[in-house]
């Protein structure tokens, strides 16, 4: 990627930023049904498995292993689960705070879609545990114009830890 500013107009960039902030707010407020509406019907949601490798290796993010490997349909399965009384991993619910920074918007081959890079730090506090889980990730989303708003077509988030310091991932990045 070039170090020069992207050829995306300011209004589009601000509008996408606003959308991503609202999307993460829905997660932090546990409005998971609302959150699902941020995704296009053909959306993919992926978190690859990271493996510690030598510096010049072909890959460090596994090309075929995923922590999340979801479609909108399976994201809805997760949300339906959270809506039951039996989602024990979120009973009581995690308190999360998504910090989304360093947002860069790039054009794609499609005029109505943009690639959005962001840094994402998720703080998760559970119950009376005084040690939070911290998930630091780089996100590479593709968003599509939808009327006056936006839809996520692809969420790709790569965690910075190869050994994840959390007993589960019952939250979304």
């Amino acid at each position: 990627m070039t170090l020069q500013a992207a050829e995306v107009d300011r209004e589009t960039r601000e509008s996408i930023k606003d959308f991503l902030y609202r999307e993460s707010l829905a997660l932090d407020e546990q409005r998971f049904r609302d959150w699902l509406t941020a995704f296009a019907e053909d959306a993919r949601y992926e978190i690859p498995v990271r493996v510690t490798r030598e510096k010049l290796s072909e890959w460090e993010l596994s090309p075929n292993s995923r922590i999340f490997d979801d479609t909108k349909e399976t994201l809805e399965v997760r949300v339906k689960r959270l809506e039951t009384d039996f989602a024990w991993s979120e009973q009581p619910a995690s308190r999360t705070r998504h910090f989304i920074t360093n947002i860069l918007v790039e054009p794609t081959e499609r005029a109505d879609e943009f690639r959005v890079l962001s840094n994402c730090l998720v703080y998760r506090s559970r119950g009376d545990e005084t040690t939070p889980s911290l998930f630091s990730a780089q996100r590479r989303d593709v968003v599509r114009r939808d009327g006056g708003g936006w839809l996520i077509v692809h969420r790709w988030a790569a965690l910075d830890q190869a050994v994840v310091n959390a007993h589960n991932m019952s939250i979304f990045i």
Partner: protein
Amino acid sequence: MSTTTISPGLRQLLGEMREGIPGGRVPARIFNDQEIFDLEQDKLFSKAWCFLAHETEIPKKGDYVVRYIANNSIIVVRDEHGNITANLNMCRHRGNMMCKSEMGNASHFRCSYHGWVYKNSGELIGVPMFKEGYEGQLDRSQWGLVKVRTETYAGLIFGTIDPQAPDLEDYLGGFQFYLDIYLKQGLGGSEVHGPPDHWVAETDWKICAENFSGDGYHTPVAHQFGFHLGYFPSSGSTHSEGWAVNIPNKGHAIGLGHTPGMPAFFGYPDELVEQMHQSLSPEQLEIFSKTRTAVGSVFPNLSFLIQPFSLDPGEPGVRFCTMRLWHPIGPGRMEMWSWCLVPTDASEEYKEAAYKAYTLTFGQAGTFEQDDFENWIKVTRAAGSTMARDVEFPYVMGLERPKLEDFPGPGHAVSPYVTDTNFRNLWSTWLDYLTREE
């Protein structure tokens, strides 16, 4: 090799546990205790056959992964002759770690401290300043990497650091019969789908190992959403049905859950079922064809699960297979590796469907996995509390249940599936290791 001395208090606890197990009593304290952890490192993980890797993780010459036996970092490699070999991940010169990555490919390993070079099979072949410094007076054949004994079964590579350990075949003691449901899914066997999920949890490994030795009892409650939403083809009213089998005094165990009325081998593609009729024996087919859930463990800490998952409630769905290693790194703390195993000869389409079912259920973000660890960290925390030190748990389920004499497989089989029978054998085997005199 054993250096740990057992305190009088611990000796008493283990003695009481020995007396308690036949009557179905196990002390809570063993599930989170520093002394127990130390003793396990010394007398269990330094004596048992420990799982290292699946052969398909290192398919090519030079491929390696780094794993553990107890707290020892071990390089598992396919050498330049295609042989699998394992060595301690420590330079013989001053002890630096040789491989700092989890996996890779290398014909040689070069230490980043003083530059000693080893073949990937462990022989020392290069020493800087061999003439100037050592004046040729270093016998390189004596200073290779420290070897670890390995053996394999159907793709599983195990290692032991006990030179006196029995052969792997003897150690598994007939459990191979049941492992085949996971490892001989078709004529080509099974392969890892990719690198494992890898995380840490404030959980004692034993809670997980017990659960995967056939705890069908927790499923309708801990994973109630799956029943409730129809993703899991079983019902609370029939969920106890099936078999529990263990290998006496070896610790290995499996739970084989049934769903009445489900067709044989449901959730597998037809071509794979045809192949299994060749890869499995008639006795295995009789048992496995009826099995909905196969949840089993190789003692001490390698587990497997096959189960179907369906996105369409009421449908058989797709079978996935996970293999997982519960590696202790401290009392009440563990490192977790979780793989998805897929049938090597299955279509790419089936492999992908099975993998997606795995990530949605038993990967780190899996909907079943999440709930298990949430419970297990709480068990661990409670077990480490002072009052729990005097508390016992009941393991009396199935205490009077007779052994099935006409069961077609090896080991001690009982029915129904929901029972503590496997766990009494697990903890008595564990106790055998911890109290064995040198």
